[in-house]
């Protein structure tokens, strides 16, 4: 068909830009960990031998796991509740869930300093109600990082999960009820298994996104909760140890791509 011949040309300008300003930089970075200043595995050996790097990697995976679990625990009930609302209310709640999605991560992270700081609304309420004499340290520790990260990433779990729950056929639940299943059994043996692929996909997505988080740990962790991204910042801008940064980026890149493949597989089953 003549209309279709030569359409490929339209892709070229962006492709050239992406090759120069994205693909080449990524490949050069990967190469730098083994080729700088000459072919060597020294940087990787240093990475494997240094307990501090392994500890930060472990810490990052720990925060990512906790964040995914918390997002699941509070996100599932929210999505489930949204499914039962009238369509008009659903639109309002979806908009509320989407709202933070649109607002700069920086702003949302900053908000937690206002809310959870020593002088913040939560600590003032706790002290006013006599639960505690001294402000509770919510910030500048792992708790603060987890709260901030969960807040930022929750919509990534809730919205796709809600969309998947809407597609679950109400008649299946009615059939179970007609056959005498109690509410609890209908939920756990019919509804939950049907929502599980989307739920699992959401959990993996939150986990992946937490791995590369930089802004929230930097601000709410106060430098006390080192994650991979913050360590990269130090290795590039402070020390500087570019080859080590390249090696750690490679690890992060590989972990992300592997998990993303898992996510795609589960999400395909959910769809």
């Amino acid at each position, binding site marked *: *068909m*003549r*209309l279709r011949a030569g*359409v*490929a*040309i*339209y*892709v*070229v300008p*962006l*492709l050239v*830009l*992406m090759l120069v*300003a*994205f693909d*080449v*930089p*990524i490949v*050069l*970075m990967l190469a730098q960990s083994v080729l700088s200043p000459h072919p060597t595995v020294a940087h990787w050996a240093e990475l494997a031998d240094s307990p501090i790097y392994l500890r930060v990697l472990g810490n990052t995976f720990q925060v990512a796991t906790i964040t995914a679990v918390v997002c699941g625990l*509070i996100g599932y*009930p929210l999505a*489930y*509740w949204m499914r*039962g609302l009238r369509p008009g209310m659903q639109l309002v*709640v979806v908009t*509320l*869930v989407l*709202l*933070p999605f*649109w607002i*700069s991560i*920086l702003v949302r*992270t*900053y*908000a*937690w*300093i206002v809310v959870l*700081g020593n002088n*913040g*609304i939560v600590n*003032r309420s706790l002290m006013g109600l006599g639960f505690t004499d001294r402000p509770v340290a919510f910030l500048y520790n792992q708790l603060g990082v987890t709260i901030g990260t969960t807040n930022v990433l*929750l919509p990534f779990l809730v919205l796709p999960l*809600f*969309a998947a729950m*809407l597609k679950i056929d109400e008649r299946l639940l009615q059939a179970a009820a007609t056959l005498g299943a109690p*509410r609890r059994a209908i*939920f756990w043996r019919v*509804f939950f298994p049907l929502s599980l692929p989307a739920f699992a996909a959401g959990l993996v997505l939150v986990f992946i996104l937490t791995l*590369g988080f*930089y*802004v929230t740990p930097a*601000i709410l962790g106060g430098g006390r909760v080192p994650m991979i*991204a913050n360590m990269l*910042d130090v290795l*590039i801008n402070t020390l500087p140890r570019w080859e080590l*940064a390249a090696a750690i*980026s490679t690890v*992060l890149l590989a972990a*992300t791509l592997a998990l993303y493949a898992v996510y795609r597989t589960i999400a395909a089953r959910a769809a």
Partner: protein
Amino acid sequence: MRPGLGVAAVALATLVFLVLPIVIVVIMSFSSAASLQFPPPGFSLRWYHSFFGDPRWVRALTTSTLLAFASSIIALVLGSAAAYGIVRGRFPGRGLIDSNFMAPLILPTIVIAVALYLFLAKVGLLGTAAGLVASHVVLSVPFVVLVVGVAIRSFDERIEQVAFTLGASRRQTVLRVLLPNILPSLASAWILALIASFDEVIVTLFVAGTYQTVPKRMFNELVLEVNPTITAIATILIGLSVLAIGAIGLITARRGGLLGTMLGR
């Protein structure tokens, strides 16, 4: 099947958890106190005065705006053309090229920041406007390819074929048949790219050199100290975001809406 009261309670608490911080920042920005006391002892506009009265913040705002407009317009032009090529073309490697364009959305931004830093340092473009704009285009172009791609896919190709058969050139077919029909999606894609660039902080921190953008200044101030002026900037950014969602909502309302598209309905 309707969820019980326990579920509703957890759901409402979660909703408050999502939205509360934003509401509180907006209220705090009008506080008259220098401390982050809540509720504020009185209302004033002092933090807005302190923002607009500080030439460093105003300069950062100018830089952010120019950068966002430049990179989003480049992203819109290149991304829309690429979306057309990918959706309508039948050449080998299309899937791979499409994934390549989407990759900046999936890879951790910090990895992209490190890669661009090392590369721009090597070619001597670190801290230049060209390097900064190119980085922002790379990060915002996936939104354009995604949104415009969906729009072109849902536009009946036979209408283009009719124009072509009646003697229109491809240029005319694209500019006078396709583009007017996908205008709402082009506008949405442009707004998305604009926000993506305006809010970008991580890559900017690494490659901007002496250029100061609003998010970069905010980040650097936040790491050091808590300054209530930030509440005013945060509120302005929230206002811009709400305006942008409203605009996209209005633009796409006639076509099932972006919400509908995002939820796959």
